[in-house]
């Protein structure tokens, strides 16, 4: 007799914990063939606000950590993911070979971004030769709390948008891919066991059209990555809402996640601080 498996309850990931939606709602997630996979939590506006609160709370510690420390933690996420390679390949459900390649690419992307933590300031900062007796230096600093609407690719896509946001010291609230959220929540289990402080990454599952505008209009969110918004009207509405407190916006896009990511996803959510001091004896 075959053994009946113990299924996992897929919940949200907020402040390092795994709560259900406060709304008590869920929605059905199916395989591409239409088979039932799970009832995922359907996050509410209140969940989104709780996630922003958690991200804000985590910001001073994470942005104040040394770049070396942040790099080590991103590398640790890659290590944990490597250990669960098979599990993710299976959960992606895209065919074994393609799935394994996607998991490997995700791990490699994390390693790539991990190395940027203590190099981006050297590449994106400047020493400024001003015409006067002054020390003058510009360095990048994280923008703050960034809301991310993740693309449909729930693993490589999600890490490709989240890693560049957090490696520089931002914290984030992520709306996971609506139809394929399960690998993203399983990824939260990896994040939770990688020394990543609670609240640095918060993951919501649910309806993009319901959650994204709240986050776009939230006064304590500083940046908005709309990469995963496929609907043009929703993207426009979110960009307009983002003007309320002048959020830095990365517009909706279709990306080739196999391509070289470049620096744009990091630099869009970086501020430049320039410090002056007179020279003298």
């Amino acid at each position, binding site marked *: 007799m075959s053994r009946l498996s113990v299924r996992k309850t897929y919940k949200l990931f907020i402040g390092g914990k795994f709560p259900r939606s406060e709304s008590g709602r869920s929605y059905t997630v199916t395989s591409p063939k239409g088979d039932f996979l799970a009832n995922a939590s359907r996050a509410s506006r209140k969940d989104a606000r709780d996630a922003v609160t958690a991200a804000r709370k985590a910001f001073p510690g994470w942005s104040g950590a040394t770049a070396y420390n942040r790099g080590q933690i991103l590398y640790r996420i890659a290590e944990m993911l490597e250990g669960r390679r098979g599990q993710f390949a299976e959960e992606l459900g895209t065919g074994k070979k393609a799935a394994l390649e996607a998991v490997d690419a995700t791990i490699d992307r994390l390693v790539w971004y991990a190395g940027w933590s203590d190099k981006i300031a050297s*590449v*994106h900062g*400047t020493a*400024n*030769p*001003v*015409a*006067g007796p*002054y020390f*003058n230096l*510009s360095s990048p600093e994280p*923008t703050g709390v960034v809301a991310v609407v993740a693309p449909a690719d729930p693993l490589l896509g999600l890490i490709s948008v989240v890693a560049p946001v957090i490696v520089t010291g931002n914290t984030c609230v992520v709306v996971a891919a609506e139809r394929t959220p399960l690998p993203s929540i399983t990824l939260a289990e990896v994040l939770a066991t990688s020394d990543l402080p609670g609240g640095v990454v918060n993951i919501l599952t649910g309806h993009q059209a319901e959650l994204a505008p709240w986050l776009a209009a939230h006064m304590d969110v*500083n940046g908005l990555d709309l990469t995963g918004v496929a609907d*043009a009207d929703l*993207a*426009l509405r979110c*960009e*307009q809402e*983002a*003007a*309320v*407190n*002048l959020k*830095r*916006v990365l*517009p909706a896009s279709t990306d080739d996640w196999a391509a070289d990511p470049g620096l*744009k996803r990091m*630099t869009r959510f970086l*501020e*430049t*601080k*320039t*410090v*002056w*001091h*007179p020279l003298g004896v």
Partner: protein
Amino acid sequence: MAMFEYAPAPESRDIVDLKPSYGLFINGEFVDGSGPSFKTVNPATEETLAEVATASSDDVDRAVQAARKAFDGWSGLPGAERAKYLFRVARIIQERARELAVLESLDNGKPIRESRDVDVPLVAAHFFYYAGWADKLGYAGFGADPRPLGVAGQVIPWNFPLLMLAWKIAPALACGNTVVLKPAETTPLTALLFAEICRQAELPPGVVNIVTGAGETGAAVVAHPDVNKVAFTGSTEVGRVIARTVAGTGKKLTLELGGKAANIVFEDAALDQAVEGIVNGIFFNQGHVCCAGSRLLVQESIQDELLSALKRRLGTLRLGDPLDKNTDIGAINSAEQLAKIRQLSDLGESEGAERWSPACELPDRGYWFPPTIFTGVAQSHRIAREEIFGPVLSVLTFRTPAEAVEKANNTPYGLSAGIWTEKGSRILWMADQLRAGVIWANTFNRFDPASPFGGYKESGYGREGGLLGLEAYLDV
């Protein structure tokens, strides 16, 4: 302290050849505008300086078309050739420096000492700096051959009319873009003189277009479908409207908006230097400065000593004729701005703060406001939260560095901040903690073309100046 008597030392205005009326500058020609013309006045005397054309949306369209037509040629030039045009412009600005300074002071009301020694030299330096980038863009870290964006629509404020023009036009042209620029309606004259400089430099027609007018003209520039890049300096309120307008269009946007900077003085600061820094921070350019140090945060232990030194210093400031070379404080730029400063200052009193100004005679005509200090200001007071954009300083106190950081960051703005202390490690710790784009330690209100300028949070996004200032005008 008794005020020294000074003989008047007026700068001659003969060097400026004011025309009775001015048109728009489109495709290298001065043309009439189809909107109703408006008057620009000398805020120090209320005399009308000239009539200026209003660009209608059709005029703006013509300007954008001219810029579009010029784009291929301009962006296709070798960088070294573009550089030489910009060097030419920089040199002509130096050659005509005094004329520009006098005209700026006439139209804006700022003291000639500032327009002559700060604004105009920085304008020339800005063009000189970005000229040198035009043939070196491949070394700036944006790839081997970064491309320009196309037509840039630029809207600038009245507080530093020509300097803001330079901050917008110099990097745009260096990167290969063409521009349509709208100066503020109360200060259009130096931009129109700049148009003449473009002609002297034989800049190809359409590369620079100047359209004058009020908010509607600016809105037409921002909303024009054939504009690829929008750059705005001005209020956060208008910045929000522009961000909403530009949303979803794919236009690249940079915004340099308001501020409510904290100028933080610790008990170990060099007091006389700090007093000079505070004065420069809030009374420079009549406080019409987005990065002005409008909130003084003073450590409680030295509050009395610092305030009495500051008041003594304010007693020596000279307010009056902007063209007098001894003048420290000029005229408020417009009646509208004066009304706003008065309204917020009255609110400061009615909310319970204590108001102080030195004995100061205001001229009978023109728009004037005396240097003003408010003490006993709470963080909740509107004069501690809102940008006054005038010579008004709100004084708050703190006990610990952590409290200073907390109060300094307690604002939706994040443009600049000042730190005064003799302790190096404290400077660097404070600089690290403050959420602002420019930190002046033991100095204030310093500007340089090589140094990136711009804000955090609701002070806007993007940087102007330095290598990072190129990013705003490249397709990267």
